[in-house]
């Protein structure tokens, strides 16, 4: 099995034991194949149990059970239409906006049920940030975009805002490119910059979790690699769940990977296990490019 994977050109990147580290990190990180195969209870940030999802009468997610570790990158892979986006949007209840859509089952964040009556959706979405496939900056200035979440939360103090905005833009690796034109329109930025702006905007409200729905799929390779570097950096402070249809990307950035197919979770586990030693045949077929 391993040799087949090694000769497949699609997975050449995976033969290295860790993704090529960004320039700013010294030394390579080496992950052993079975490291992190099971998670300690205290490390789990998001716990999903038996989660179903329906659009009207159509069931699109079937009994998903998945534990997402804190401060790591969990990648969701699978062919398009398999429910990855629906799943990720259920975590911050973005699906609530869609009529006739409902979820059944449990999603716990730090032990708290996201769908319980006690949970305040608005507060939840502040704690769980989201970056979308198409960058969607508001038609306002760069400054106002990043400040948006803070301002609706009631922050008015200019010095506070300035500080947090600078911090967020720095974390999103955008500060140096825009610091002299914070009041220029966000729409004047390039696609990759706009996406990093959206990341900065999401980070400004200080979330604990960052959900990213194919954040680089609309970007060229250079911009994509910048985003990937960013994700690598961000995972030190945030729990990141990323949906991607790009397997090499998943192999590069993730710590854990979950493979979805037709609304079901086929297999999940340590990134290296999934890509080099998958337990399910379907997983092996997918990661070696035999379909999809």
């Amino acid at each position: 099995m391993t040799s087949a994977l090694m000769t497949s050109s699609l997975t050449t990147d995976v033969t290295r034991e860790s993704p090529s580290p960004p320039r700013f990190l010294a030394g390579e990180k080496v992950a052993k194949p079975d490291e992190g195969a099971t998670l300690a209870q205290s490390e789990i940030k998001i716990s999903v149990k038996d989660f179903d999802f329906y659009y009207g009468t159509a069931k699109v997610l079937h009994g998903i059970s998945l534990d997402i570790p804190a401060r790591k990158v969990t990648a969701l892979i699978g062919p398009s239409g398999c429910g990855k986006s629906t799943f990720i949007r259920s975590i911050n209840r973005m699906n609530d906006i869609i009529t006739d859509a409902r979820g059944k089952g449990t999603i716990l964040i730090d032990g708290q049920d996201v769908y319980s009556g006690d949970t305040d959706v608005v507060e939840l979405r502040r704690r769980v940030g989201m970056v979308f496939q198409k960058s969607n900056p508001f038609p306002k200035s760069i400054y106002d975009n990043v400040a948006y979440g803070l301002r609706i939360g009631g922050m008015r103090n200019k010095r506070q805002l300035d500080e947090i905005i600078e911090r967020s833009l720095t974390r999103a690796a955008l500060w140096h490119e825009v610091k002299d034109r914070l009041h220029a329109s966000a729409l004047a930025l390039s696609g990759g910059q706009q996406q990093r702006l959206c990341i900065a905007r999401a980070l400004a409200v200080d979330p604990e979790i960052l959900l990213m729905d194919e954040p680089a799929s609309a970007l060229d390779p250079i911009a994509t690699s910048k985003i990937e570097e960013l994700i690598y950096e961000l995972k030190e402070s945030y729990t990141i769940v990323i949906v991607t249809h790009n397997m090499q990307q998943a192999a590069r950035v993730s710590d854990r990977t979950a493979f979805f197919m037709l609304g079901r979770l086929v297999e999940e586990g340590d990134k290296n296990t999934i890509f080099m030693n998958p337990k399910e045949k379907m997983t092996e077929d997918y990661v070696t490019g035999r379909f999809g």
Partner: protein
Amino acid sequence: MTANLRRRKVFSRIFETLCALAVIVALIPLAMILFYVIKEGFGALNVDFFTHMPKPVGESGGGMANAIAGTLILIGIAAAFAVPVGCLCGIHLSEYPGTKFSSIVRFAADVLNGVPSIVVGIFAYGILVLPVKRFSAIAGGVALGLLMIPIVVRTTEELLRLVPGGLREGALALGATRGRAVFSVIVPAALPGILTGILVALARVAGETAPLLFTAFNNRFWSTSLTQPIASLTVQVFTYAISPYDDWHRQAWAGAFLLVMMILALSILARLAVRRLERMNRS
């Protein structure tokens, strides 16, 4: 939940409620108008209304037969004028959409759409009444037609654009000239929609009063002549409404009721025509 969050949620609820209230507030006058028109108007309708001419000032009774006929004649003239002009213009715009000429014409049609109906009336007065020093049904009909043109142009152009390009290519490939292709294949395909546009435009001008005030003017007697002033439901309702006579007020309501019914009938006709023609097109 923090105080700030609670406040924001309350605000959200308040504004959402205000929006719902706005809907209710707008529906109140609608309900009132329909109510009064039906109540006062339907009650004042009788056979005389449809068969008699207006009685002289002060005398009660009489009807609006001439006005009803007049309105029908006027919208007939309007259609006869606006349909060919509007459709052919729309055809040109859809066949040659990118030219400078087409852009200018489109712009002109937009301008015409925004001209108040009374100003269009002044124009019709200037070119059709003043030279012959006489009010006439034609002048009124043309004024109404002018108001119809922008609607017909826009609907025709939009609908012709929607016809799949394959149809035209097919016709041209069979050796049809452009004109033939357009008139024999493309226009029939878009016909239901174009017809709807015409009926919608008719419904709109049937209710117009201002442009008729000094083009078709008014006529106490029965007249179907195109070169004489002619009565119309709208002008008659206006004349009666501002008069001091209760009987005339009643008849004004009846006229208004009839007018609303006529417009409703045209709208329903428009919808039926679309369905019927689409069925024909499919078979």
